[in-house]
């Protein structure tokens, strides 16, 4: 054994003593005042709200079928920060059924005192009809924290933005446009706003005013059923119109928000115009109007088919329609599952499917291992046999 080794051994022995002494000393000094167990919870709560009680402070009639509900905190908890383009989910109780819908926030984050959601009454709409026709100033709701990834992401998106809005899909763009202009963000925005008729156009006065006064914003209206006197662009958001209204496509980031039919057309158009996939962003839009038309729907199941849903470990069982999202069927039968996006993406409603099968469209953001282990996102799952779920 070399002298060095002996030296090291003595050092090691001493260091063990040192650690023990240090540990005892630390304990003698340690005082529980050093611990603030709430730091993490407070930091998280300031950014991520679970469910926030809100009150309708104002109802603004935007068009015949569209209203903006201005929401303010109903309790002590302040409103949450969000990114322009994100949505929040509003929880409602309609005739004893608790359900929810996600709506893009139309106000900008810089207006910290309130959050606006703008709702169009959809034909056969359950919640939208309620929010537009029934809700009045002073009504209270629960609101989720912000969700979704439909926002300008400066890390990867260019600063020239093309907004492709269809109908009430204008709402997230209003938040983005208002914020960009108020903050003088330097973004170049080209809004191409497709609407059926002129009467359906939401936020028109504000948009045309902003387009005149702000260099960074161009607004192009595209009407599919224009009035006779109309001189603007007609038709749909197809390749020809996009090409003409955007001009040089390179270096631009495209954002799409609108009904399902529009995504098909716009998506194909952008592909045709050779816009790279990474330059195209698409907002979620909830369950498709007719699931049986979606690619992959099993031909053996008719739209009118009904199946039985059982809840494992309980006596609950009830019939459900194949064409209705399972989450909606559950809510109709008094079973509440927490959820956020209701479009298959966020996974908050993730549930175990113990028996039977469901159909989920390809865009559902299911984890591979969840698929393998039999988990589903009920907000975008359609029963195609009798099923048993575990809650």
């Amino acid at each position, binding site marked *: 054994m070399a002298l060095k080794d002996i030296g090291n*051994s003595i050092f090691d022995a001493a260091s063990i*003593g040192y650690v023990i002494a240090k540990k005892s000393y630390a304990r003698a000094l340690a005082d529980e005042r050093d611990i603030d167990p709430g730091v993490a*919870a407070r*930091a*998280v709560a300031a950014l991520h709200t679970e469910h926030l009680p809100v009150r309708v402070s104002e109802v603004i009639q935007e068009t015949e079928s569209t209203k903006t509900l201005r929401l303010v905190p109903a309790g002590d908890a302040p409103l949450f*920060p969000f990114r322009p383009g994100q949505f929040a989910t509003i929880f409602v109780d309609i005739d004893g059924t608790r359900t929810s819908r996600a709506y893009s926030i139309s106000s900008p984050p810089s207006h910290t005192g309130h959050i606006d959601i703008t709702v169009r009454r959809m034909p056969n709409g359950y919640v939208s009809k309620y929010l537009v026709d029934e809700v009045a100033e002073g009504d209270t709701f629960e609101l989720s924290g912000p969700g979704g990834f439909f926002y300008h992401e400066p*890390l990867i998106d260019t600063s020239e933005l093309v907004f492709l809005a269809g109908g009430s899909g204008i709402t997230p763009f209003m938040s983005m446009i208002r914020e960009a202009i108020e903050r003088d963000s330097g973004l170049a925005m080209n809004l191409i706003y497709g609407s059926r008729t002129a009467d359906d156009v939401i936020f028109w006065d504000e948009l045309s005013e902003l387009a005149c006064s702000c260099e960074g914003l161009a607004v192009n209206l595209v009407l599919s059923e224009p009035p006779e006197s109309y001189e603007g662009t007609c038709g749909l958001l197809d390749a020809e119109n996009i090409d003409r209204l955007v001009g040089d496509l390179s270096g631009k980031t495209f954002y799409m928000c609108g009904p399902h039919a529009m995504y098909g057309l716009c998506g194909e158009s952008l592909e045709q115009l050779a816009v790279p996939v990474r330059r195209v962003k698409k907002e979620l839009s909830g369950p498709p109007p007719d699931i049986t038309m979606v690619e992959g729907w099993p031909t053996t199941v008719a739209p009118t088919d009904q199946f039985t849903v059982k809840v494992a470990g309980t006596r609950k069982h009830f019939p459900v329609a194949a064409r209705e999202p399972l989450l909606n069927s559950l809510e109709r039968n008094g079973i509440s599952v927490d959820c956020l996006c209701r479009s298959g993406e966020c*996974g908050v409603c*993730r549930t175990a499917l113990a028996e039977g099968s469901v159909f989920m469209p390809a865009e559902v953001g299911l*984890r591979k291992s969840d698929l393998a282990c039999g988990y589903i996102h009920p907000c975008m799952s359609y029963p195609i046999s009798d099923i048993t779920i575990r809650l």
Partner: protein
Amino acid sequence: MKTKRAVVIGAGLGGMSAAAYLSKNGFKVDVFERNPHPGGYASSFVRGRFEFEAALHEISGIGPPEHRGGCYHVLEGCDVARRVEFIPINEFYTSIFPDFTVTIPNGWEAAEAAYAEQFPRERKGISRLMNQMRQINDELGALAKIKGPLDALSIPRKSAHLIRSFGITTEQAIEREISDPKLKALFCDIWGYYGLPPSRLSWMLFAVANATYLEYGPYHIKGTSQALSNAFVSAIEENGGTVHLRNGVRKINTVNGKVTGVVTDEGETVQAPYVVSNANPITACYDLIGKENIPASYLKSLAEGHIAISTYNVYMGLDCPASDLGVSGHEYFMHDSYDMDAHYRAMFTTDKQQYWVLTNYNHADPEFSPPGTSVMVITAVVDGTAWTRIPPDRYVETKERFAQQMIDATSERFPGLADHIEVVEVSTPITNMRYSGNPNGSILGFDYDVTGSPMMRLPNRGPLEGLYFAGAWVRMGGGFETCINSGMLAYGEVMKDVNGVKGLARAMPAMG
């Protein structure tokens, strides 16, 4: 008939490992988890057409079928291993320093040769260091086989290297054998996994942790660590346990210093004489139990440990294969200098980091992302404190600035990277806090300094009768393998009480 009831708080790896062992061994187990999916950090998420691994870079202690490691055996012992596909990663790590780049291969001999090839003059010192690490690990393995207090008397004779590693830092140990600062930086380069620079990091921890990689090789989990977490749930449920998701625990009930059960977020009271908390002990003692019910000495021991670092991640889905960007390996450690203490100091700020890692998940599993694409993650280990002080309205801006710096710095080494990002997601220590509830968003519980090495950590036995801990904050500490171990150790403590073990045998920690 299952009559013994146990409740596990939190479905992280530690909690699920405890639950898997308990349910396999005759307990009726209920696991309560706040999140909609199990796993805690061991999870994945989907953005666009990409699924991202949330936390795991490479798991240790698995090993090939003919040479399985400790972690694999622990997973096997609770019916989890057979449900998971482990994919070997064919290299240990790659270091990109300002003036050289080296890939360290797997295996003791090959790794030693790679260090020596880069620094031939220090060949002998490198060899001695590797040898020491190997012996420390072997001795720790032998320690696990000690039977009872009498046998423990032989520890000093059988564990000379282990004991000598106990009180010293990694820097103290390596300085005896090697001298080139560049070699030191290369040799210690995965210190980020362990949360402290060599000048503060326990040598025992460094030696043992590196040894589990060198001995058994690093592994990736097919389908991400979410697949491992889902496998735990399957194992627990197959053995009669239940994992309740979206329903955490808000209170631990106690009567006269004894745990009687819990109250769930949904308001239900569940009676159980055995409660294993995977929620960190600080939250458990202060929020779930109430500090007035905890012995003061235990509160002191919570206050004396320093909370370890958290992580900052930039998750990237790329619209091209990794090879197009010159990324051919699994993991690249990058640095602005060789000064590891300076790297550590930067972690306490939200400024540009000087030490970070790029992980290419398609290396181990070419099917990780859709054909023609790849998934890479930039990770920096950072302290959570600075992030808790950012005003909410400045949070996004701060996190974006930070991410931009990380992407730019990585693009300098891999030109073109920034031009191919189709999907990006950023997580900060706040994100870690949100999903784990851990103070400071710590990924390792308390620091692995010499007073926090695996031997000195808080025990799995809690301060009250019927209360046990599993997870990063207690033995064996933070990390995948160690957390999985901790659950088994917590189960061991429960069994002592079930069997009425008393005295010294009860007080002595189980060795696994």
